[in-house]
């Protein structure tokens, strides 16, 4: 049990501290490797156009993973983020249709969409933090509820978004694509949020809920705020999806829920709570995106694509876990 045994059999202390401080490093390495591989198999994939396409397609998953990160910080989970995304997507499509496609109407609809996301998040927070139901089961149930609402609002996919909306999202301003501005704005917002007291409190609750309570932290309120924040970011993801697909689809987010969880884990955030970073989740989401495009570029036959994609994600997870474990041991 002496210090010497600890040092002898394990990674150098500096490496350990490095990984502790930047838990997303393995994800960054995997991301760079994937970018290189993509460039190798399809040189065009590193072009300006392709990167722009990648961002506008995966911005939604990035935001959804960020949303998921905030609840996972507190050792909670939200299996309804995809359903919230769908509900906000159809919600704003219908609102924009009613309000007409004017810029004012579009902005109003976007604001309403964020409020819908916030409301869904608060519902989740009440169910999980206040009523103390198991997060996995409870948010699975609310996901069915939100999907049901989305199907009521728009039973079949297809209603188009107003031209001004998707033109803006796909457009270029002052020489830069709109999504680049969005990405920069999001980066700034995430940077600021990471410095708020709420994040430290969420992480402390995730570390040890009993200890946080005994310290005097308002644990229920903190978890509730985590879910509310998650709902807002799921709504922001919906705004991006709407810009990317230019239409309403009541089931669009369904598949993205577990992708968001995978992205968070890939990014080095622990499902058991207490450690992690949104930066990692952003990288994780990009990894998932790049893996699907790589599978496509190497010319995998379509019937094998899912299998190869699954294997690749498993591999990425293993690399991340092994590096993390080495750093800990």
């Amino acid at each position, binding site marked *: *049990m002496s210090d010497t045994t600890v040092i002898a059999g394990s990674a150098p202390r500096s490496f350990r501290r490095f990984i*502790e401080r930047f838990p997303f490093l393995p994800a960054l390495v995997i991301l760079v490797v994937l970018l290189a591989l993509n460039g190798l198999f399809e040189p065009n994939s590193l072009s300006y156009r392709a990167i722009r396409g990648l961002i506008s397609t995966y911005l939604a998953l990035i935001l959804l993973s960020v949303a998921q990160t905030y609840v996972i910080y507190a050792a909670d989970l939200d299996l309804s983020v995809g359903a919230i995304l769908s509900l906000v997507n159809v919600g704003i499509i219908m609102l924009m249709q009613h309000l007409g496609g004017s810029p004012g109407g579009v902005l109003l609809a976007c604001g309403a969409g964020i409020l819908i996301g916030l409301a869904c998040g608060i519902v989740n927070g009440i169910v999980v933090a206040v009523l103390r139901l198991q997060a996995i089961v409870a948010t699975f149930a609310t996901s069915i509820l939100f999907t049901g609402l989305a199907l009521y609002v728009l039973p079949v996919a297809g209603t188009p978004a107003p031209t001004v909306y998707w033109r803006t999202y796909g457009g270029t301003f002052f020489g830069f694509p709109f999504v680049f501005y969005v990405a920069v704005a999001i980066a700034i917002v995430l940077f*600021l949020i990471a*410095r*708020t*007291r*709420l994040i*430290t*409190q969420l*992480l*402390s609750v995730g*570390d*040890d809920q*009993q*200890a*946080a*309570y*005994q*310290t*005097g*932290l*308002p644990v229920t309120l903190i978890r509730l705020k985590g879910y509310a924040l998650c709902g807002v970011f799921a709504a922001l993801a919906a705004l991006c999806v709407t810009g990317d697909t230019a239409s309403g689809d009541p089931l669009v987010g369904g598949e993205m829920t577990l992708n968001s969880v995978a992205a968070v884990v890939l990014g080095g955030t622990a499902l058991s709570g*207490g*450690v992690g970073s949104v930066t990692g989740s952003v990288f994780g989401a990009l990894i998932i995106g790049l893996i699907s495009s790589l599978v496509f570029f190497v010319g995998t036959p379509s019937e094998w694509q899912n299998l190869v994609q699954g294997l690749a994600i498993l591999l990425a997870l293993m690399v991340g876990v092994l590096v993390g474990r080495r750093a800990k041991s």
Partner: protein
Amino acid sequence: MSKLQLRGVRKAYGATVALRRGDMKLDRGEVHVLIGSNGSGKSTLCKIVAGSVRPDGGEVLIDGRSVEFSGPNDARKAGIGIFYQELSLAAHRTVAENICLAALPVSGGVFVDRAKVAETARRYADLFAEVAGTGFSLDATVESLRADQRQLVEIMKTLATEAPILIFDEPTSALDRAQVDCFFGILRRLKEEGRSIIFISHRMDEIFAIGDRVTVMRDGETIETDRIADTDHDAIIRRMVGEKGELAPPAEAANDAASGGGQVILKVEGFSGPGFSNIGFEVTEGEIVGFGGLHGQGQSAVLRALFGATPGNSGSVVLDGRSMSAARPRAAIREGFAYISGDRGRDGAIAGRPILENVTPIHFLKNRLALARPSHLRNKALPALEALKTKYAGLASSINSLSGGNQQKVIIARWLIDRPAVLLLDDPTKGIDLQTKTDLFALIRELAAEGMAIVLYSSEDAELLNNADRILVFNSGAIARELTGSDRTRYNLYHAAYEAA
């Protein structure tokens, strides 16, 4: 008027009464010591004052006004700071963040004011700068710290509340001499400022070094308060023991013949490992050897190491004349060891599985069975369960459907099918009712009479005194004293356990 007063405070967890009657007065500018054996209700009393446990009855008064807290946050605002015995730290947060966690300074209403956090934390960390040791810094995560350093962080966190009432629930259990001296220096200064301090420790010398008054607790009751200057070591121990201390050692355990003659079954020499060092003892055929002392002085660690459940041990273990070194429980079981822990959830029950499966795993292992034949297993399991008078609906019902005591009987039954040579009991009666305990110890004595060698660690002194032929009292990972024959009294047991470490 007292700063803090408790009147008849009560708390029960189901059938366990944690605090029967808490009465005490805490004055301004005093260090008030609480002392009592393990489980006497000290922590429960403190947690009630700190708002993290809601009392069933009684009254808490601050400055003469009755208060009722809805949670720890409430108590903090009312001016109470507490050091929790089990600590209340966030492992992945930094030292600085932990120190300030209760009231994180913010700028702009929402952002953590890091400069302020660092400055506040530095103020309290500097108090211990000399004694904190290597690896301690404000931006280290708590996870990376040693046990004593974590305890220092919890102390700093408590001090940072700047509360007029400070409660320290065993703050020194992992600290070394220099750290304790440094901490006591700070306590003396706080006392001079007029703060009121509750201090809990099992170390007698510390109590006399820092205390002004002492309240002794026994079986969930505050017995009496004395000025430290008017009392002494022996008087305090006599209070803790109570009338029960005057009882002669129970007749039943007077199995002195066994400790005299018998063939040696287990011989341990120079046994060291994490949490204990240089342990040596012998157990003869049919003997029950007791491990005593305060919680966590190495008793469980020794038993778990003998069973091969923890790595990193050295020394010699001889079983039936064969030298052995169990690297894992699987090997230890084949050699003839059995281990029963009071922590069923971690060490015993196979949760959610039928009773039959929970009775037979050892039988499987020892006989290297490959196939499960229910009728055969049932014939093996039934007599074992019968012997313990286990109450259950059917062998196929899940172990979780049983009460704690009956779960424990199922776990014990698994060792009765193929008898081991040595039975290691690690506080086996945790959470078991009185009747079951009586049954259990009757059985244990029966097993001993049939020639099994038994090592019993119990956190309840009565169990040791009533059942063990010899008691080895542990202190700081070593055997401090051996009690045999008529020396086995509660008084001697406490005396040895509370001797300065």
